[in-house]
């Protein structure tokens, strides 16, 4: 009861201004930044507001002095500036911008977000500077050739996404670099079909996030997150967009630049149905998604493997997972329990376990790395990749099943694997933490009760920055996790008794295997490497929907999305380019 009041009070405390005011505030914050960091974002913001065009011109010319760098992350800011110009920039500044797109060749990159940024920017600039020969472009191709190629890639991306899901799905950070290109095209594409499809994709991507957020926090498994966001869940680009689009969570001190570029283009306000889906957590629900792996260049018969996501969400917490395995390189996050807190700033409101895995095999699956330098090259930018203490990344030796708010994660780590142990994250921000003689651990985070049963002995080691790492150095291992709202029990002791009364059988050899009667009364059976069963029925991976649940519905290969809330419906049909 007290927690509910706190949540309500917190919501009131974070009451956000209207959407238009949030957009304006964001643009203003970039137009007049604290300090002296006046980059492309400041120019874009000032041009949007029609402020100080002479300064914008001078600063743009300075920034475009060679050597330019940034690749596709340079392309999208300069594209915005070109479209926000609207007669404000000097002729010299415009010429500098035009010349930069001839003399600087941005790298196209090696992944979905890179290509989307590259081709969206190229599309819009080729549209802006039509009729120019190849000599005027870094590609060596004419404006029309660039436009055609970019349009073809964007179309292929939309088709693949609406048929098989994104490869870089549900990223806490990269959500921004999928939303901003669509915002650009929705605002600036002259082709009405491209413009419309981009707006539909905004609905699509925002719906994906709306159904899987808790107070603005992107919950569930992620293709990519990072070392900070994986534990401080709100502190992310997704959190920024939660506030910008829906007024969720506290106002970020300074939103990420991706939100700015989204706002200076279409500043698309999602329809009311998406706002309701994003904010209504009055009824618990389970949401299903099918995504795909990133491009697997080596070691697999299929370029894209399936990703099966399950996310259970209620007001007090969310439990989300994929099926385990290496679905993405380096930054995958496969499962966790995330609980709602009154103020998420600086709070580590999550619990999970994982196997710290790093290998050349993983890198060569997804990249063109040669054998000797791949891991070192990755560690230069992703510093924890090859660390035994890390809390980020998937493992081929982790398999996961979920039913509502119950998760079973099993590990069968082959001998001689680089890191032969599992890690778990025990937050500094737990309200209660009890290690029970039974082997269960009981945790309370605000109004979420969590019971976790490691299948092997473990130690708790301090983590720099707060919290503890559950360290369990066994090859065959696992954890059974059951969450429940505090409102269902008088206290943690009552929860403990209820959990201890549940039937749990497990064995560890030859591979981990668990039978567990969940708090929801379901009989869960899971053996490592086999299809999990719920009440005797195997999980139906074959018919896993692209989206399934009370809010979103889409079949694999459909190129459609049905958005539902109560009796309201909004149907996106990318085959006919219609919204009904």
């Amino acid at each position, binding site marked *: 009861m007290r927690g509910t009041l706190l949540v309500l009070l917190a919501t009131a405390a974070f009451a956000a201004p209207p959407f238009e005011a949030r957009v304006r505030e964001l643009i203003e914050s970039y137009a007049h930044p604290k300090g002296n960091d006046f980059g492309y974002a400041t120019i874009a913001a000032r041009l949007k507001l029609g402020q100080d065009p002479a300064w914008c011109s001078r600063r743009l010319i300075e920034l475009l002095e060679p050597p330019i760098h940034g690749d596709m992350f340079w392309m999208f800011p300069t594209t915005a500036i070109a479209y926000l110009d609207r007669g404000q920039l000097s002729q010299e500044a415009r010429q500098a911008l035009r010349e930069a797109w001839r003399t*600087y060749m941005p*790298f*196209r990159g090696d992944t979905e977000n890179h290509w989307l940024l590259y081709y969206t920017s190229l599309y819009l600039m080729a549209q802006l500077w039509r009729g120019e020969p190849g000599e005027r472009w870094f590609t*060596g191709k004419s404006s029309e050739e660039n436009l055609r190629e970019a349009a073809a890639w964007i179309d292929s991306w939309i088709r693949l996404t609406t048929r098989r899901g994104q490869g870089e799905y549900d990223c806490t950070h990269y959500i921004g670099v999928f939303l901003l290109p669509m915002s650009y095209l929705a605002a600036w594409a002259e082709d009405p079909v491209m413009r419309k499809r981009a707006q539909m994709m905004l609905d699509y991507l925002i719906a994906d996030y709306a159904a899987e957020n808790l107070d603005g926090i992107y919950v569930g498994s992620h293709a990519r997150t990072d070392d900070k966001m994986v534990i401080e869940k709100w502190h992310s680009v997704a959190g920024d967009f939660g506030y910008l689009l829906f007024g969720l969570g506290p106002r970020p001190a300074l939103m990420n630049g991706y939100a700015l570029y989204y706002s200076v283009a279409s500043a698309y306000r999602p329809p009311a149905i998406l706002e309701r889906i994003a904010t209504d957590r009055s009824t618990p629900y389970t949401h299903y998604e099918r995504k795909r792996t990133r491009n697997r260049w080596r070691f697999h018969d299929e370029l894209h493997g399936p990703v099966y996501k399950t996310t259970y969400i209620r007001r007090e917490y969310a439990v989300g997972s994929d099926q385990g395995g290496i679905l993405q390189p380096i930054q995958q996050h496969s499962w966790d329990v995330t609980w709602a807190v009154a103020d998420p700033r600086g709070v580590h409101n999550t619990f999970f376990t994982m196997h710290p895995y790093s290998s050349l095999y993983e890198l060569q699956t997804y990249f063109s790395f040669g*054998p000797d330098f791949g891991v070192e090259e990755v560690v230069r930018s992703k510093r924890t990749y090859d660390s035994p203490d890390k809390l980020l990344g998937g493992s081929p030796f982790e398999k996961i099943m979920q039913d509502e708010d119950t998760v079973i994660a099993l590990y069968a780590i082959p001998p001689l694997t680089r890191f032969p142990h599992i890690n778990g994250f025990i937050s500094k921000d737990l309200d209660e933490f009890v290690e029970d003689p039974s082997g269960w651990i009981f945790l309370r985070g605000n109004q979420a009760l969590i019971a976790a049963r490691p299948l092997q002995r473990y130690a708790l080691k301090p983590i720099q920055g707060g919290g503890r790492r559950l360290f369990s150095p066994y090859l065959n291992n696992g954890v059974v996790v059951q969450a429940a709202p505090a409102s269902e029990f008088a206290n943690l002791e009552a929860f403990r008794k209820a959990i201890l009364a549940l039937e749990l059988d497990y064995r560890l050899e030859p591979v981990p295997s668990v039978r567990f009667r969940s708090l929801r009364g379901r009989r869960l059976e899971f053996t490592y490497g086999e299809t999990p069963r719920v009440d005797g029925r195997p999980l139906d991976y074959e018919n896993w929907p692209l989206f399934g649940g009370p809010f979103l519905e889409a079949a694999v290969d459909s190129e459609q999305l049905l958005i539902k809330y109560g009796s309201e419906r909004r149907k996106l049909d990318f085959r006919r380019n219609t919204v009904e």
Partner: protein
Amino acid sequence: MRSVLLVFAVAAAAAAEHRMWVCMRIQKNWVGGLPLKPSGLFVDSPGGTFEQRGYNHPLVVGLDYDPRDPSTLYLAAGNGLIRASERGRRWRILTDHQVTELRDVSVDPNAPGTIYFAHVGGLHVTRDGGATFEPVHPLARRRYTETVRVDRTRAGRLVCGGESGLYLSENGGRSWRLAGGAGFQIMYVQQSPHDADHWLAVTQLGGLLVSADGGRTFENSGNVGVHRNLYDIAFDPTTPGRIALCGWGPGVVVSEDNGKTWEERNHGLPSTAVWSVAFDPDRTGRLVASLHEEALYVSEDAGRNWRRYGLEESVAYRIRFIPEAAR
């Protein structure tokens, strides 16, 4: 004395029939997203300095040329297949969004306009100089292709290697057969300039594979680079029987007897992490090697002694000597 030597060096370079071209990246302390120091395509100029040609690019990993017009190079690059005409100065990306992250390129000298390129998603060819492309993957699945080389003696005959083994086509990629190395990742394949039937391929962990029948079958040589990673192969065009290989661990390895025996030749090198090697066709015994994030090194005695040469802090993915004039 120094001036005399300099004049001599300049005169020698000016008289050279070939120039050294390097695909490289300045990599020391660099990670993606940081400003990229001059990287991409470089040519060794008379006087021993390197000149960048074309755009700065972090991933130019292979090059080839048409002997009929060596002023135009074809680059295997991150952004696609690039035609670098006017001696590398003018670039055009020939491919479109359908291929990415090229790994190698090979021009068919006997089929005008035909260029094969290996990439992370397989193998493609253009038969019309880059106007159109078609996939010619050896396999329907597991297409990753790291290297491709066209037989210089017969149009449409080529060997490629990738995730698992070497494949030979004798009809321009329309059909293929496994030639060897099954189970090994192939890193590079090369044909001898002296004997068209003699082919070599280097591998990840599997050592050196040798073909004596024109690439129909490859067998493991069994005596060099096994359990290490080899990256490059250089036949000495001036000296039949002399071959250099390189890799991480073995460094530079040279054979003087056509691969029967091998000797590690790393005296004067700061490490044994070597990415690429090439012999100078105009100066017998002159061998160039790329040391990981160190520099290019040059030897005038086929690798017995080395000195630092240029392109500091670089990784050179490929070094090629290319004729100044059409043959």
